[in-house]
């Protein structure tokens, strides 16, 4: 075999090896992702910058975190036939495909795992479940210890709200090479995280009417760079809670001094879970106050005891809708600064608190409580009747003195019918 022939043979071997190696490289696994329609909860969140476009369909609010909701995604895998890869899911506000952001090579870790890594080869479509708490676990932390791997986040990550106010987190579903941790394939999806409710509004006064109390407040506003103020764009609505419920006797007359000096609305700062705990042991201070003032205040004071933890701060507070002692008015427009609470009983003392609700349905810190009672008023018609006037009842209506009215209507109708018949004849 001549030198030239050998050289040609060697060249052929090199080219063949290169082709085979390139073929192996093309065979890296792939992953595609689609959001399923079973992901809870579906929220229509307005993009803040434009105020109109819906950018994020899914998000995590304080309630989702407290309730440890899960988000399910469907990933399709292909060409994963060999070992040497891991499936990992990372979260972060930076590009987690970059190994540096995952703390590889000793650099500062800025992303965190939200699912345990798995080295098993995957094929077809598979469901991947992500917990809301894991998504927010390291959000807002200035540094994450390099090499930190997945660990189940506790409820504490929900009550720690620093850096978790209206921020976009991206989930990276990646097939990672075990050799160098580089991303072989990745798919990503954004999640909007907002665990912080609007600032607390303040009830300015309560207008007193007949069976109605008008709650007035100062709206939560934002201040622009130029110093101007405008309605806080994050506020979706306001919600007013009050107690006792409509129709319940509550306290009135001599059993309550009506000065509202003994308002029994507590802010229990020891319970960060922000659930309503009317009637529980955490209301001992309320009970004591009410007992001292009225001698029989347990029921009433428990009824108004609401955990408004972190009141005065910006932490979201979940006030109850159905707790036995509370009633509420919901869906009050963000631009409103008052609401008429109707259907109340005169001379019964009602206590109110108010919260703003943001577009992620976070209920903001509650206002301080105010209380008063509606009173019977003397309107024009009652004054007129009191003076001996007898008018009223409407046209051809029933009611007081209806007999003559119905008779008059009957006579009128009969006259019309007779007139028409006469014309025809």
């Amino acid at each position, binding site marked *: 075999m001549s030198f030239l022939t050998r050289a040609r043979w060697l060249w052929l071997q090199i080219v063949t090896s290169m082709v085979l190696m390139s073929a192996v490289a093309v065979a890296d696994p792939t992953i595609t992702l689609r959001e399923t329609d079973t992901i809870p909860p579906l929220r229509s969140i307005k993009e803040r910058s434009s105020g109109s476009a819906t950018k994020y369909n899914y998000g995590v609010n304080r309630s989702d975190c407290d309730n440890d909701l899960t988000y399910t995604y469907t990933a399709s895998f292909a060409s994963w036939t060999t070992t040497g890869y891991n499936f990992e899911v990372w979260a972060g506000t930076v590009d987690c495909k970059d190994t540096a952001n995952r703390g590889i090579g000793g650099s500062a870790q800025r992303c965190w795992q939200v699912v345990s890594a798995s080295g098993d080869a995957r094929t077809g479509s598979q469901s991947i479940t992500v917990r809301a708490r894991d998504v927010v676990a390291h959000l807002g932390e200035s540094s994450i210890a390099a090499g930190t791997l997945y660990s189940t986040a506790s409820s504490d990550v929900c009550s720690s709200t620093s850096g978790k106010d209206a921020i976009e987190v991206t989930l990276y579903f990646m097939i990672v090479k075990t050799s160098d941790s580089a991303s072989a394939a990745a798919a990503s999806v954004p999640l909007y995280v907002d665990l912080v409710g609007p600032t607390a509004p303040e009830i300015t006064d309560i207008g007193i009417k007949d069976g109605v109390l008008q709650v007035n407040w100062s709206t939560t506003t934002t201040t622009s760079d130029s110093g101007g103020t405008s309605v806080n764009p994050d506020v979706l609505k306001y919600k007013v809670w009050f107690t006792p419920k409509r129709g319940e006797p509550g306290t009135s007359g001599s059993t309550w001094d009506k000065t509202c000096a003994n308002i029994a609305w507590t802010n229990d700062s020891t319970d960060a879970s922000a659930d309503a705990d009317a009637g529980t042991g955490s209301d001992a201070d309320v009970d004591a106050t009410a007992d001292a003032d009225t001698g029989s205040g347990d029921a009433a004071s428990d009824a108004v005891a609401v955990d408004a933890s972190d009141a005065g701060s910006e932490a979201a507070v979940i006030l109850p809708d159905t707790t036995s002692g509370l009633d509420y008015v919901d869906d009050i427009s963000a631009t409103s600064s008052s609401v008429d609470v109707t259907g109340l009983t005169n001379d019964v003392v009602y206590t109110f608190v108010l919260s703003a609700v943001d577009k992620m349905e976070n209920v903001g810190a509650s206002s301080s409580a105010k209380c008063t009672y509606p009173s019977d008023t003397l309107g*024009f018609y009652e*004054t007129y009747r009191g003076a001996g006037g007898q008018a009223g009842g409407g*046209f051809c209506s029933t009611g007081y003195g209806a007999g003559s009215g119905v008779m008059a209507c009957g006579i009128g109708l009969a006259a019309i019918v007779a007139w028409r018949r006469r014309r025809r004849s």
Partner: protein
Amino acid sequence: MSMRMRVLVALAVIFSPSSAFAEGLSPRIRSNPHRFDSPQHFAMEFRMGPYRPDVDGEPGLTSKPYNTVFGESKSLYIGGEFDWQAVRIPYVGTLGPGFSIGYMSNTTTAPFKTARTDGAASSSTTSLEVIPIHAIGVFRADVLWRDLQIPFVPYAKGGFAMARWRASGDNGTDGYNGVPSKGTVYGYHVAGGLMLSLNWIEPHTARNFDQTLGVNGTYLFFEVYTTSLTSSFKDQPLYAGTTSWTAGLAFEF
């Protein structure tokens, strides 16, 4: 020239339109401003004025409830009227039926029945609303303006009147022992007034108004009237009528 004619001529000179506008018109129009008017069959009025229903005039009342609640104040009445000038009486004016409807409302703070220990003020309101409706005959003596160019049109109206009334508070229509605080009352309506022709002030604009929209005449008017509403199908009527004045803008077309 008789004395009567001299007086009329003098009045015509006094009330003749400004020479600047008159100079812009052709001699034929100046001699008879109505010569090229479009056909005229209707009139429409938009009016407003003070209105204080004569509730306290009802016989048998032991006090004056309207005055007690609303004080001496009068409310603003706004309304409109549509007339069909069915008959033109040559050298006199027009005569025909008309229909008018208006609205007045008086609202004030309703006091507490008993004083509160905290001294708080009431935020409750109480109000009385009245919707007067008239079916009337209207006579407008436009001979002065049409034939003598004196820009005033005296008129008179009279006929059937009715009104819907309603008293309400924070919780909607007030009631008293189950009686709804609303009703209908009937009576009569008479009125007299004087209209000032704006065509006389702006003849050129008026002519354009007529040519483009068919409005023959535009007037400012002042009217005094009495609406007596003291009858009802019910046991007692609420005396919702009044004697007052109104002013506004009228169009003939």
